[in-house]
């Protein structure tokens, strides 16, 4: 047990920071104000990810065979920290890199790998995930979008909701029911669907979080070749649970929260607010939550570095990350009062992003259920 970064890791972080200094445009703050799904940020991501790819950093944690360099998980975690902290210049592409690519490596055919992995690795493609439905949010297995087999294609009918990045996406990793008779976890399949297929329409749901954050995606007799199915038919649930294990701590929320908190404290100091012990306490407590989330996330990365299978530590880290994010967002709003509500102001921008933390990707409640069942081994009903 030891808690130092290796000199190589430290050097990588330094190099990455220099790269960001050089690469990010002066108006990056403005570009990133509306979140990764905004037109500006998604557009910029294509440019930025290409440059990350040039350096070999975009998918360095991937195996060499798929365009990576087998970098240790800690190295990729550093990239996650540095990029999330400043508002994620990879835009929606962090998803492909973190888990969609690895899922294709694990379950894809040679043809699918050849089609998708190089493009992801070069940073030139945007994906969205078609999971949630109006009647299936955190409880994904209740999904109803139907894919009927017709010859060598599936015909997909249904709709997805809360889909981020759908407006920009080139592909969708889509969860469909291929066997309506089967039980809840059975009969689900995963399709890799080009978004420019006929019969797909996208509607933006105006949201408080930022532009292009939520969408509805409608599938009206959309024909998807059987060759686009990822993994065996009716066993998509395994594919998804496996894929999501990568996803769970992919977003280094604590890093963003830590930087936000530092900025908040800096502003508070400038205004003399640190003299107020109540403010000092609140900042201190928020810092403990951020640090807790960091150390729990490190624990997960460490397990991966040791080649261990994912454990419930993943859920602990996620809930802690959400709590930290929300606490910092709330604190910013509270300290700034009315001033914090001005659109695009420091407090406002951070709060809106933090608000979704507990809801996105498997609500906190689901994480807590898993911790109770697997970490504490509490009985079911």
């Amino acid at each position: 047990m030891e808690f130092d970064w290796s000199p190589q890791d430290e050097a990588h972080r330094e190099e990455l920071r220099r790269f960001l200094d050089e690469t990010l445009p002066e108006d990056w703050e403005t570009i990133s104000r509306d979140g990764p799904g905004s037109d500006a940020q998604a557009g910029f991501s294509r440019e930025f990810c290409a440059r990350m790819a040039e350096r070999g950093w975009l998918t360095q944690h991937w195996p060499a065979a798929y365009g990576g360099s087998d970098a240790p998980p800690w190295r990729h975690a550093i990239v996650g920290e540095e990029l999330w902290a400043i508002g994620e210049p990879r835009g929606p592409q962090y998803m492909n890199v973190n888990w969609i690519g690895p899922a294709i490596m694990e379950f894809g055919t040679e043809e699918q790998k050849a089609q998708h992995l190089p493009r992801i690795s070069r940073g030139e493609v945007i994906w969205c995930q078609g999971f949630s439905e109006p009647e299936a949010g955190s409880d994904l297995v209740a999904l109803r979008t139907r894919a009927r087999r017709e010859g060598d294609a599936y015909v997909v009918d249904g709709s997805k909701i809360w889909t981020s990045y759908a407006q920009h996406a080139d592909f969708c990793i889509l969860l469909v029911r291929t066997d309506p008779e089967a039980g809840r976890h059975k009969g689900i399949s995963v399709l890799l669907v080009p978004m420019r297929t006929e019969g797909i329409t996208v509607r933006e749901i105006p949201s408080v979080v930022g532009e292009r954050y939520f969408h509805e995606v409608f599938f009206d007799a959309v024909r998807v070749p059987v060759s686009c199915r990822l993994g065996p038919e009716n066993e998509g649930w395994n594919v998804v649970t496996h894929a999501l294990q990568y996803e769970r701590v992919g977003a280094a929320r604590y890093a963003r929260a830590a930087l936000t908190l530092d900025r908040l404290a800096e502003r508070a100091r400038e205004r003399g607010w640190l003299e107020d012990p109540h403010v000092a306490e609140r900042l201190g407590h928020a810092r403990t939550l951020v640090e807790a989330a960091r150390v729990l996330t490190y624990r997960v990365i460490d397990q991966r570095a040791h080649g261990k299978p994912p454990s419930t530590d993943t859920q602990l880290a996620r809930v802690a990350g959400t709590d930290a994010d929300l606490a910092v967002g709330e604190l910013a709003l509270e300290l700034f009062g009315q001033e914090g509500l001005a659109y695009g102001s420091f407090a406002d921008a951070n709060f809106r992003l933090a608000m979704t933390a507990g809801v996105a990707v498997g609500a906190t409640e689901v994480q807590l259920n898993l911790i109770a069942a697997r970490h504490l081994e509490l009985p079911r009903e």
Partner: protein
Amino acid sequence: MSLDLAFSSEQLAVGEAVAGFCRERVGGAPPAGDCPADWWQGLAELGVLELASPEAEGGALEATAAFEELGAVAFPGPVVEALIGGQVLRREERAAVARGALRVSVGTHDLAPFVPGCEVQLEVSGQSLFRAPLAAGFESLSSLDAEPVARGVRTREERLERSRAGLDLGRLLLAAYLVGAARRVVALAADHARTRTQFGRPIGDFQAVAHPLADVYIGVASAETLTHAAACEWDERRDEGEGPSPGLAAAAWLAAREAALEACHVAHQVMGAQGMTLEGPLYPLSRRIRQRASHAIGTATARESMVARLDARVGESLG
């Protein structure tokens, strides 16, 4: 006559009239931005804009009944400010406020909401209200994508008499508005919890959903009664001819604020992504709650007056 915690029939009638008006005009959710001119005129015609002023028949209780209904639909615009104006402005100005012809903004030293729609701009500082217009050339901002706010330099012209009465009424009405909004938020979340199913049952079956909702229900219910008590106190003191003192109004404001913010927090958790859309019913309410909870009246003075109140009580009980 002993304790009686129900609104009188006159007060109920005020509330119902406002509720009816809101149903008819506002419908499901109010639009972003300032209050449309015809809605404002409608409020004036209902007599809402003059409640609790020296000329009005109705006092703080009537105003409370009205503002709970306004809160329930997240009614836009500087309504609380109009009634503050009804306490502190000159007689002819008060009449114009009551007619809907004059609008009042109450802000901090450098922020003023609803400018330029407001002809009278007041600044709040501690227990004082100043007439303090913004200089030309202010910067226009938007607050939580909805309300217009201006940032600029003010010139203080005069400290207004009856500042304390005005601010006390302001706290009280903010509390009433927040209570009304929070009740609706809890109702929406409870409705969602009864109808939305997950893992094969309504999510309200889960204690993890039901108990936090019970807690916010309790918080809102007690804040509601505290607001009513504060309104009673305000009216009694007015009838007795005393100037209102910072008492229950400060407590009601602090309690309602806390309860409403917590209600939003829980409701967002219960309703998930549906609470994050601009189309859904929750966000327009929670946004407005966040704005009203951040009102320029602030919490520092209210908190200090609570400590002062304790000082007095302890003095009494030890003496």
